[in-house]
């Protein structure tokens, strides 16, 4: 990566969760880029929106697993 990361560099680092493994100066450069670039900020916001929406879809009220649990526990009893 160049000293000043491009939008392409920033999107790649963010979308692949690679930021924590980058050296400190790259992380700083990416942060600074995000402060200055509204397109990349919008991109990050989109990914955040997607993640939060998917969590909302699947983390709502969980379907009851009581009967399934009972059935698995019976299998355990039979086999042990």
């Amino acid at each position, binding site marked *: 990566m160049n000293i000043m990361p491009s939008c392409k560099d920033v999107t790649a680092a963010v979308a*692949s969760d690679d*930021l924590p493994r980058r050296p400190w100066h790259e*992380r700083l450069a990416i942060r600074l880029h995000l402060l200055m670039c509204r397109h990349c900020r919008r991109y990050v916001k989109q990914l955040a*929106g997607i993640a939060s929406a998917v969590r909302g879809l*699947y983390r709502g009220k969980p379907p009851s697993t009581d009967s399934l649990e009972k059935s698995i526990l019976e299998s355990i009893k039979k086999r042990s």
Partner: protein
Amino acid sequence: MVAERVFLLVALDTSALWRSQSVAVSIAFDDPRLVARIRQREPEALEAIVREYLPQIVRAARGAGLKTQEAEDVAQSTFITFLEKADTFEGRSLVRTWLFGILFRKIMEMRRVLDRERHTDDIDEVMESRFDANGSWFTPPRSAEADFYSREVRERMGECLEEAPPKQRIAFVLREIEDLATEEICKILEVTVTNLGVMLYRVRNRLRECLETKGVWG
């Protein structure tokens, strides 16, 4: 003061950009003595594991694209395999990692058949076309506003998830829904950190592009 701000900027990792990291479930499930109890197939230990992880396993299976009945069947099958192999558990990974690994292999076996005829766009090429030669946005994101609470947008999100390749989708589910750490996901999917990064990059961009095509962003 300035130095402190710089430190804070640098110290934040990617997840801090948009998500909070949950603390891994531990309770007594990290207890080394549990390994021996599992290997001896002690019913109380096995039952406690079923009670602790069944809802998570069913949720992950549904997140990976299985219908409710399919998800319950594959969850049951996951625990049966776990039970059958309990005496080989060496405790080198968390029980949860082991269970998710079994679940992942079962879903991939199912999906391999279903996905045989399926073709998907190459998201890498789509992303290449988004930037100019200098790596600046050529066609930037138009908006980040979307009403994810509306039924219509949720349906479109569901459709876009359906189009994602199974392995990428499972990686996404383990990261975003189950909040697992990179190292644990890599163990479950048996991939390197770099491979996982590529999968997450592709699935996130695939979802983003798909939602854009469907006119979700305001």
